[in-house]
């Protein structure tokens, strides 16, 4: 057991080191303080000039006025417009893939609903896959279509997070097109190149050659799928996308061959959302607060890992009883990762809204199922690229509102009063998730035969259905699988369309609310701090916020958790 825990600790250690560095870098990229310029003559200044030149070329080519400052509405409109254009482009690409080049396996067009679901899924940074990549999409579709969205959807989320932080700290929101360009050129592209190189070193293939045909030892012919995997893999992890090149995702030996690539992939998932908290601290000029928030989220994270890992280490009592010994639960796991690395990954991938998997989540013990579902419900245990950090602050604002009243003042956050518009917009963010998860789940479970095609009856079936929508609405993308959600199945159409609705709803409504919230906050006259002001950078307030997050999150989803993983746990452990 200790070896497993040591592996987990070893993976988490670099995050503490990366967070302040990357957080500072993000603050510089998005100009927390425009006067900070790189002064020393070094490789950094050389890189800076390369970045600046490419940015300027892009602005000139697409006629972007980079000094134009957007309001909340304008920023949101720019996001919607650009996302619609990108979505249409990719949808057409997927539908016409049969006639396009780089289709070495001669794949035909997917069904329209699969193409639509896939487009929306990658556009919203969800990357829920109701297909197997190697047998559905050509290299062109994967690299030019989906690979393109891996970058833009991550950069869109990052831009929203940055715009939100700017508004919260009293700055104007900035310009979406500039933020998008900077996010890709200065953050995602350079980092994913580095990570892709590390993956290449680790043994991940990067090729346009067609699949390899091999003859196995017992003489059978086996076709081994390869492709331009390494670069796809790096942005998939870094951008919280999670959409695998292969159907088996990061459990596939070409996506994630060994412990080294597993380590890199895990760190890549967590690094940006964690760093963004520190970026907030720099923007707000209060790194004490950002470290406290970081600590809170890290605490949630560690506890989640603990629960999931203990569940897996304890193994399945029904099987252990037959074996007559205590074995960890290794069903659905890659032996090269073991219970500890798989549990850590599961918590990280559901917490960060990455959604890549290196083992079968469906096979987790109920404890793991509970934790992963709860992560999807809360959406802040690191959270999605950019949006996760924003959700975190929505909870903070709600906590400020409740506790601020209790000190006898109109609640204020960073000196700005929390009033009706803020509560309405924060509430919208809070409401979207239950609506997008519970309502379609209820409809699906009301018509189990016609709509769902659930492989497991009973409590686990409930977990499967709820997980699918929670994953869609949270823009996570992982799945408990076992649902007949792929196109040839009769229920595929329902799953594709209903999940698409949840993804769209769970992505764009909160983005609009967040931007309007930030816009409103940026326009408020700040009130000076006095001893009567509630300080938000204290251990007390941070603990209260943690309580508010747990209570609000738990209250909304406790009945579902009770009928899903909790009931399942009682059943298995025979309590």
């Amino acid at each position: 057991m200790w070896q497993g825990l040591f592996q987990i600790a070893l993976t988490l250690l670099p995050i503490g080191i990366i967070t302040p560095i990357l957080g500072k870098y993000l603050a510089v990229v998005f100009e927390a303080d425009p006067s900070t310029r790189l002064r020393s003559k070094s490789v950094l200044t050389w890189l800076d000039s390369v970045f600046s030149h490419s940015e300027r070329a892009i602005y000139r080519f697409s006629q972007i006025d980079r000094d134009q400052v957007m309001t909340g509405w304008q920023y949101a409109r720019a996001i919607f417009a650009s996302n619609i254009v990108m979505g249409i482009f990719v949808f057409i690409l997927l539908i016409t893939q049969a006639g396009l080049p780089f289709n070495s396996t001669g794949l035909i067009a997917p069904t329209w609903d699969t193409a639509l679901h896939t487009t929306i899924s990658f556009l919203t940074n969800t990357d829920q896959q109701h297909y197997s990549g190697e047998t559905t999409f050509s290299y062109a579709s994967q690299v030019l279509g989906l690979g393109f969205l891996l970058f833009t959807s991550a950069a869109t989320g990052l831009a929203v997070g940055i715009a939100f932080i700017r508004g919260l700290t009293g700055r104007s929101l900035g310009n979406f097109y500039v933020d998008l360009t900077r996010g890709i050129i200065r953050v995602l592209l350079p980092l994913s190149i580095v990570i892709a190189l590390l993956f290449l070193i680790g043994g991940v293939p990067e090729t346009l050659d067609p699949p390899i045909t091999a003859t196995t030892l017992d003489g059978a012919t086996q076709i081994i799928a390869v492709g331009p995997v390494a670069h796809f893999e790096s942005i998939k992890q870094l951008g919280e996308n999670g959409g695998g090149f292969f159907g088996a995702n990061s459990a596939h030996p070409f996506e994630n061959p060994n412990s080294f690539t597993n380590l890199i992939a895990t760190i890549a998932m967590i690094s940006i959302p964690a760093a963004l908290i520190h970026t907030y601290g720099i923007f707000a000029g209060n790194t004490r607060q950002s470290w406290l928030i970081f600590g809170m989220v890290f605490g949630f994270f560690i506890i989640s890992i603990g629960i999931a890992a203990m569940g897996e280490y304890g193994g399945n009592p029904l099987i252990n009883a037959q074996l007559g010994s205590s074995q960890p639960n290794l069903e659905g796991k890659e032996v090269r990762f073991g219970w500890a690395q798989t549990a850590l990954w599961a918590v990280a991938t559901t917490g960060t809204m990455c959604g890549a998997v290196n083992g079968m989540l469906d096979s987790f013990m109920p404890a793991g199922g509970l934790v992963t579902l709860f992560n999807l419900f809360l959406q802040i245990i690191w959270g999605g690229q950019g949006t996760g950090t924003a959700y975190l602050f929505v909870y903070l604002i709600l906590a400020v509102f409740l506790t601020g009243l209790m000190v006898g003042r109109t609640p204020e956050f960073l000196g700005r009063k929390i009033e009706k518009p803020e509560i309405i917009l924060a509430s919208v963010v809070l409401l979207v998730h239950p609506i997008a998860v519970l309502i379609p789940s209820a409809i699906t479970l009301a018509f189990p035969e016609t709509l769902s095609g659930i492989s497991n009856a009973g409590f686990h079936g409930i977990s499967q259905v709820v997980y699918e929508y929670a994953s869609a609405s949270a823009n996570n993308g992982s799945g408990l699988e076992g649902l007949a959600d792929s196109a040839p199945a009769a229920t595929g159409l329902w799953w594709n369309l209903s999940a698409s609705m949840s993804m769209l709803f769970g992505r764009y409504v909160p983005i609009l609310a967040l931007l309007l919230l930030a816009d409103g906050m940026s326009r408020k006259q700040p009130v000076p701090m006095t001893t009567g002001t509630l300080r938000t950078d204290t251990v007390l307030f941070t603990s209260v916020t943690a309580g508010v997050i747990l209570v609000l999150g738990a209250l909304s989803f406790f009945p579902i958790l009770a009928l899903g993983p909790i009931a399942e746990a009682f059943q298995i452990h025979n309590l």
Partner: protein
Amino acid sequence: MKHILSPTVIEDLSAIATKLHDRKSTRYLLWSFAINLILAPVVYAATGGTISREQSYALGILGIVTVALSLYLFLVIFQPEKF
């Protein structure tokens, strides 16, 4: 005695209720009954015949009431001054 609240009784009750209210609520009630004509068979089908037709009508109305309450709450959320 088992089902004294058959749909007709509910309609009678609602007729009394509408007398107490203005015309607007009458229209809402009529609409909800109209919608229920479509909704109730769906409910009946969903339950796989474990409930009677009357019960499916009652459940349909209950569903409409729930949706109406939800819409009402959205109204409160977006225009709290009116309440």
